[in-house]
């Protein structure tokens, strides 16, 4: 009887103890719990920093789901419940505004960040994505933009397309497919935001009182919608367009008998093909993201992680020390080489060792200067859901009507009054 009770007690309390994560009473170095999606480079950078800390702190990764929407949901639930086991958060760049406004992360004071605290150290796009309300809430960890990938053998001696119109013309003439994301997911917002920003517009504008208001200028928005519609109707659109996300695109492009000559995707596709089929990797070409307006460089959406320190952490100093270690050039180099995710540091822009492994880096660095952060807004998630609601499926877009619908729904979304 007693044994059963003990067993029951043990079963009941064990998971609770596991939840408590950052319990320091057990002695040893303070634990820094890092909530982040499961990335291949995590063990390496954590090991490096734990070794360097030599007992000052110990980073423990708390793995989140692979899907970014689900990562965010789990974090938001925990943060709204003031979970004090969250010390460090690997935030998708677009969550920064939302988490800051809600008071779930604390801003970095002047001088607290050794490696990524100023615009001189960090590339412009990633740096802007970490700012909210004139304060720095995120420590940029890595960055990302989509590039135009093409198969050299299929393109032949034709010029690499520089604009979306050229891209679709070329693909139609060659009778090949262009792989882009069309699923009703965040990736569709990434696509739309890139076209809109490249056309000279943006979804929202910051206001003086630290909030955001709807921008969505008519001309550029309709231009972006026209391109999406033209692409969806074109013979260059793959059959599975309305259900594919980035990884579906990668798989379709990577398959040996693929009929896709072009793909717009994040640079992780390159380390991926190098591992899957090194011969095929030689056929991969890369170019800047196609422009919308001729002669005006594209402004593809920015991806990547910002590190944030949770507001309910029990040891902010340890978390800050961990941030300063994780953002060092050594760690950024590891992330770039094993994950294909470029560094945010200006000093690594022409690093010869990185260039050898990631030959597309110069184009990338240039793009990161131009890249458009997706709206840094506390209502980002609602904005994103509203865009997905109106623009999916792409073949049903009607530039005139969709523009009005988008405007109407986004206006409601910004006031957190939209049913989505």
């Amino acid at each position, binding site marked *: 009887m007693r044994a059963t009770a003990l067993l029951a007690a043990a079963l009941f309390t064990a998971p609770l103890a596991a939840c408590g994560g950052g319990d320091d009473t057990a002695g040893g170095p303070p634990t820094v719990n890092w909530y982040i999606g499961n990335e291949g480079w995590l063990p390496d950078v954590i090991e490096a920093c734990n070794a360097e800390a030599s007992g000052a702190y110990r980073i423990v990764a708390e793995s989140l789901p692979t899907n970014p*929407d689900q990562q*965010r*949901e789990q974090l*938001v*639930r925990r943060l*709204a419940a003031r979970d004090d086991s969250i010390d460090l958060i690997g935030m998708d760049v677009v969550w920064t505004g*939302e988490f800051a*406004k*809600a*008071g779930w992360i604390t801003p970095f004071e002047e001088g607290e960040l050794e490696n990524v605290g100023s615009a001189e150290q960090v590339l412009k796009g990633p740096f802007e994505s970490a700012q909210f309300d004139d304060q720095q809430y995120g420590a940029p960890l890595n960055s990302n933009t989509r590039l135009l990938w093409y198969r050299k053998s299929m393109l032949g001696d034709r010029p690499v397309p520089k604009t979306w119109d050229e891209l679709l013309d070329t693909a139609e003439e060659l009778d090949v497919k262009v792989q882009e994301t069309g*699923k*009703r*997911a965040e990736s569709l917002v990434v696509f739309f935001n890139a076209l809109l920003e490249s056309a000279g517009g943006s979804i929202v504008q910051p206001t003086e009182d630290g909030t955001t208001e709807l921008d969505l200028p008519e001309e550029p928005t309709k231009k972006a919608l026209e391109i999406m519609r033209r692409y969806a109707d074109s013979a260059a659109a793959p*059959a*599975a*367009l*309305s*259900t594919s996300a980035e990884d*579906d695109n990668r*798989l379709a492009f990577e398959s040996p008998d693929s009929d896709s000559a072009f793909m717009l995707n994040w640079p992780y596709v390159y380390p991926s093909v190098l591992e899957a089929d090194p011969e095929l990797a030689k056929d991969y070409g890369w170019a800047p993201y196609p422009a919308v307006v001729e002669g005006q460089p594209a402004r593809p959406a920015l991806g990547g992680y910002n590190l944030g320190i949770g507001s309910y952490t029990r040891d902010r100093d340890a978390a800050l020390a961990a941030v300063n270690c994780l953002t060092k050039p050594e760690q950024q180099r590891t992330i770039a080489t094993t994950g294909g995710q470029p560094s945010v540091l200006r000093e690594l822009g022409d690093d010869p060792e990185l260039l050898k492994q990631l030959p597309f880096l110069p184009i990338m660095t240039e793009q990161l200067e131009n890249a458009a952060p997706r709206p840094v807004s*506390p*209502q980002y*998630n*609602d904005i994103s*859901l509203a865009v997905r*609601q109106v623009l*999916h*499926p792409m073949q049903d877009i009607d530039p005139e009507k969709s523009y009005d619908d988008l405007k109407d*729904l986004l206006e*409601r979304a910004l006031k*957190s*009054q*939209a*049913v*989505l």
Partner: protein
Amino acid sequence: MTATTTAPASRKRSGGPVKTTDRAKAERNLGLKLAAPAAIIMLLVTAYPICYAVYLSLFRYDLRVPEENAFVGLDNYVLILTSGVWWEAVLATAVITVISVAIELVIGLAFALVMHRAIFGRRTVRTAILIPYGIITVIAAFAFRFAVQPDTGFIGDVNPLGGTIGSFATIIITEVWKTTPFMSLLLLAGLATVPEELQEAAKVDGATAWQRLWKVTLPNMKSAILVALLFRALDAFRIFDTVYVQTAGQFKSQTISGLGYNALISRVNLGLGSAISILLFLMIIAIAFLFVKGFKTNLGTVKGED
């Protein structure tokens, strides 16, 4: 065989007033006392959250902009009821509910008859029919998604989840596959109450199998059919997992529960989300009310013809 054959006279007893003795009263009191703790706990765990949701639904209450929270009266309900997205979800939910429950009723009845009439291997037949109901909905939803997707599926080079009709069809087929056993189980219970003598009498009168089904069996299990329909309709109206896994609301297939999930879990907009949940709750009550009314009048007609 002009009139519908009715239930035997034994049913009559339950309807008439019965004189209660002291002993019966005491027993009823004891029964109430024994049931009270469970009832109180039920009230605490269901009534409290429901009341709290009603309360929250009257506020602008968004955890992401905590300083803007304020009492807004019925504004949340107005916002929802004037939104196109809401009505699209109501339509999607209604379409999925009506079609899947209708198909389930027909197949479920066929299964119930098979289970009822099976002469050999009765246990095997019943187990085989009930297996899908033992599978977790999320797993069934994934199984069907993988079955129809072009890259993992076996139905060829088409992409049903890439269009409106295909999306709805996939969701409905999954629902039907998964819950028909439940329907047939409820109907089997109804079949068991149809007295065998009536069947034999009808057979002697020269009724065909089809006539016996329509004029003897079905009228006598009307209440079982209504109960089965009610249970499944309430269940189907709250559909969430299948849609979440298979389409995530793509192609106008977002359901009311999906909207509630987005508002409450993904957007932590507790005010708006609570209002959506309350509206769903009211719709469920309305459906239940309609069914219960239908259920009562039916019992009445059965008795009236006695």
